[in-house]
């Protein structure tokens, strides 16, 4: 089978799965539609939250950003995960306790004001629309590559699919589709990471591989990477920071607060049965997110290593070349020299 046919088959099957799930779990009541009847298991909700929240940014571009920024890229890792601590302790349980469907409803009732409610609706729409624009751009780019169609056509296909399963299944359908999406996403992300880690360090777990020695030598991977980059005239990977400490501090803080306030994440906590479940569910969400977020720095550093190591690009390409090429491409516009060994 040609690559094109295989791609169509895999993408087609995934869509069929998502739509199948939506039809199977059709929403029949208002409560089903908005909050999945409030009986989603906290672990299932955690997984769905993880898939919902880890979007084009985490999946497509974060490792590339970190590879490019070195230590400075940590602000995305800490900022985007740290927000869940705020969410779990300051927001989710209280909103769940209130027991309505949406945040504006809470604001309106809490402050006895219809105006407050309208203001909340406007904020929510602005936040969501901004967010969706970014995601849709990602969908358009990904689909136009995979299906080899025009960017606009890819965008419309993606929107159509999401529309069908969201309208049919409501929050219940979305929950189960997102669980399926999480499984697809985490496999696609960790498998190349495991292979690149094994190849470079002999250690299959990227989180540990990043702190290990290079295979067949006594030198630690990060030390070697620092040394190679310094030799080429760049900043050390592990200390390189493009921003001052103060800027990193406020950047990280803003990402944390932003994460805690995302409307589509908050509403997920209305789907669990009890307040207690809202608390643990935030923990589970972060567990599933952490699997990807602790792998990303490994992918970033190892991909950097692969692309700068002298002589590493002669002859055969390793199994991990796909992920490497992806991060290298993300960088090429800003730092041409480091990709010249590609």
């Amino acid at each position, binding site marked *: 089978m040609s690559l094109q046919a295989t791609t169509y088959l895999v993408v087609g099957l995934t869509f069929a799965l998502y739509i199948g799930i939506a039809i199977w779990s059709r929403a029949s009541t208002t409560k089903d539609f908005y909050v999945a009847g409030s009986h989603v298991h906290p672990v299932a909700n955690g997984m769905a939250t993880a898939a919902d929240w880890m979007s084009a940014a985490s999946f497509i571009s974060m490792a590339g950003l970190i590879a490019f920024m070195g*230590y400075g890229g*940590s602000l995305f*890792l*800490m900022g985007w*995960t*740290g927000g*869940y*601590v*705020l969410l*779990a*302790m*300051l927001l989710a*349980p209280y909103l769940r306790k209130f027991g309505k469907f949406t945040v504006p409803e809470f604001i309106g009732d809490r402050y006895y004001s219809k105006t407050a409610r309208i203001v909340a609706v406007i904020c929510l729409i602005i936040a969501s629309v901004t967010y969706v624009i970014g995601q849709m751009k990602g969908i358009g780019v990904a689909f136009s590559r995979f299906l080899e169609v025009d960017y606009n056509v890819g965008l419309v296909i993606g929107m159509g699919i999401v529309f069908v399963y969201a309208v049919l299944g409501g929050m219940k359908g979305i929950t189960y589709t997102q669980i399926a999406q999480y499984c697809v996403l985490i496999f696609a992300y960790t498998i190349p990471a495991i292979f690149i880690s094994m190849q470079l360090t002999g250690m299959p777990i990227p*989180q*540990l591989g*990043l*702190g*290990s*020695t290079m295979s067949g030598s006594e030198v*630690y*991977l*990060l*030390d070697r990477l620092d040394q190679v980059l310094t030799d080429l005239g760049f900043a050390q990977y*592990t*200390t390189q920071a493009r921003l001052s*400490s103060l800027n*990193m*501090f406020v950047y*990280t*803080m803003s990402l944390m607060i932003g994460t805690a306030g995302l409307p589509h994440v908050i509403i997920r906590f209305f789907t669990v049965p*009890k*307040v*207690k479940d809202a*608390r*643990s569910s*935030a*923990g589970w969400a*972060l*567990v599933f997110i*952490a699997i990807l*977020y*602790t792998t990303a*720095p490994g992918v970033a550093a190892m991909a950097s290593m692969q692309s700068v190591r002298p002589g590493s690009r002669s002859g055969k390409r390793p199994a991990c070349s796909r992920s490497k090429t992806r991060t290298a491409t993300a960088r090429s516009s800003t730092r041409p020299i480091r990709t010249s060994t590609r």
Partner: protein
Amino acid sequence: MSQKADYWKANLRLIAFCLAIWFVVSFGFGIILVEPLNGISLGGYKLGFWFANQGSIYVFVALIFFYANRMGKLDREHDVHEDKDV
């Protein structure tokens, strides 16, 4: 009434404790103190770099579960848990 106030106070104390740790591992170890901590190494990692890249995320996960567990206990102690209305 004082029962409720006690519950709320204990709740706030727990949140303050957890958020203090949250702040120290990310902003403290990962950003402000990163340079001195980089002098210490953890395997192939510099410690400050490790906190910024990996450690803070592990601590966040542990913190949320610790908080959820402690809140569950507090709820039962102050008899505001939800198991009865099921």
